[in-house]
């Protein structure tokens, strides 16, 4: 097994930055959306739920293709930014947000559904405003949902390949992430290095999932 090259390390760094940014964006956008999905009686709810779940079943290339078109100089997002976002880190973040959306929204939605409105009303009756009640009561009770959402969102973004290749290409230091690096190594028959990164990804993913399940056991919230 060969050591990681500088190029590999820069890919790791891009991957970590990408996953972190994606999770941060998804938590801020996803929290209100998941809350809405958990409590709304709107008839649009199933439509939104289906749209959120879409990246699970869609081939990444399909998603990647449309995002690429949207981000390009003539796409709506590209025009908005007044430049092409395709093959940039920003473009990659936007694509990852869509791609990892269900892995963040769904755990949050289930957590909010489990918490229900009862603790919120209790907090209101104790003079806590909406934000206050959310931060001090709802989010701590929904902590497990947040842990799952963060870990799954992070890990899933680390592992994406198809969308990254479509939207980001594989520009070293900018859009080349670990999964595309493996592909590049295999292309040029550098199996040892492909193996090193693959093994790293495998162990990393396993540890992440292990952490989620241990956390779920260790911090059971007693809702009475």
């Amino acid at each position, binding site marked *: 097994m060969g050591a990681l090259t500088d190029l590999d390390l820069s890919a790791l760094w891009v991957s970590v930055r990408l996953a972190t940014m994606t999770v941060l964006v998804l938590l801020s956008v996803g929290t209100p959306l998941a809350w809405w999905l958990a409590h709304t009686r709107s008839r649009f709810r199933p439509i939104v739920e289906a749209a959120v779940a879409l990246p699970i079943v869609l081939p990444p290339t399909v998603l990647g293709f449309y995002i690429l078109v949207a981000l390009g100089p003539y796409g709506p997002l590209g025009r908005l930014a007044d430049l092409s976002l395709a093959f940039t880190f920003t473009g990659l973040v936007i694509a990852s947000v869509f791609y990892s959306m269900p892995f963040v929204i769904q755990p949050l939605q289930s957590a909010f559904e489990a918490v229900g409105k*009862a*603790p919120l*009303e*209790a*907090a*209101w*009756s*104790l*003079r*806590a*405003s*909406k934000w*206050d*009640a959310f931060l*001090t*009561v709802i989010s*701590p*009770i929904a*902590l497990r949902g947040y842990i799952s959402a963060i870990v799954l969102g992070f890990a899933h973004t680390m592992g994406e390949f198809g969308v990254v290749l479509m939207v980001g290409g594989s520009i070293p230091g900018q859009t080349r992430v670990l999964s595309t690096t493996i592909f590049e190594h295999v292309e040029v028959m550098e199996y040892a290095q492909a193996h090193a990164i693959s093994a790293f990804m495998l162990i990393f993913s396993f540890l992440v999932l292990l952490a989620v399940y241990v956390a779920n056991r260790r911090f059971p*919230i*007693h*809702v*009475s």
Partner: protein
Amino acid sequence: MSRLLACFDVRFSAFHLNIDVDVPMSGITAIFGPSGSGKTTLLRCLAGLERAPNGFMQFGNDVWQDEKRGLCLPLYNRPIGYVFQEPRLFPHYNVRANLLYGYKRIPSEERRITIEQVVEILGIGRLLERRIHKLSGGEQQRVAIGRALLTSPKLLLLDEPLASVDVQRKQELLPFIRRLHEELRIPVIYVSHGIAEVLQLADRLLLLNEGKVVATGAPNEILTSLQFRGKLGAHRIGAIFDARVAAHDAEYGLTRLEFNGQHLFVPLQSIAVGQIMRVHILSSDVSVVIGRTGCPTSVLNILEATIVEIREIDQSPSVDVLLDIGAPLVASITRKSLVTLGLKPGHRVFAHVKAVALNEELMA
């Protein structure tokens, strides 16, 4: 005395709440009625948790909801303490942090109730450092009441706070609720469908049926009204009133109570002369006698009474006779006795009361 004005007209899928009340806010007001009559919904409207489209609500001089002006204060801006059917304590905090949650959120100049007071009244001193899931149901509900009190509310809303606790715990909690009202002087609105709770606690009754207020008034007037008692599960109640302890007779082991110039003997009480006790009489323990000096009787409690109203009960050999003894008193007698004695409204009679229950004994 401040008043509560509330006017709500809300339609839910299978239910219509239509309320227009103006009641004085002092003591404990019980919202009473059968399951599904809209008690909890009314309470939630009062708290602003349900929003009635054309609602209006005023507490004292403060308008909390006036939809004509588009005003509806959220619950967190109303000086209300709310205790839900379930304790709804916050599982990530211990007892102390739960108690302090609301306390910390009100300005210090508005804090009229201290933690020491609440801990003392509710007897939760030894629970303060416990985790929530280590408490029994009754303990949790006491903490929930304490947490609400520590916001120094101007109005305390209790939604069947004893529904989820067993009879023994109920017995333990009722005196706390009585005390917190007596010691802290906070008006309480108490939702209940248990007649026994209402009898022990309520100073005023708001009778609800199918989303409408059917009657408001003192519990004794409503529960002895021949029109309602059958429907309320109150058909065994003869009277509820507050009497003053007049004297103790240690030799015979009796305490003499006085109300409206009449006397009642009960087993010796350890309560000081001059104190007020709530008295309950079952209608089946009351018999009607014409003339005091007829036959000598072993019955001690003989009260002067006037017959107000007589109502026959369907498919029953009994009739209800509503008497006026300075307070309403219902006697259940047989129709045969009614006819034999020739009783009619307006007749002056004597009521023989065979047994008197006092507050503490009621739940046992």
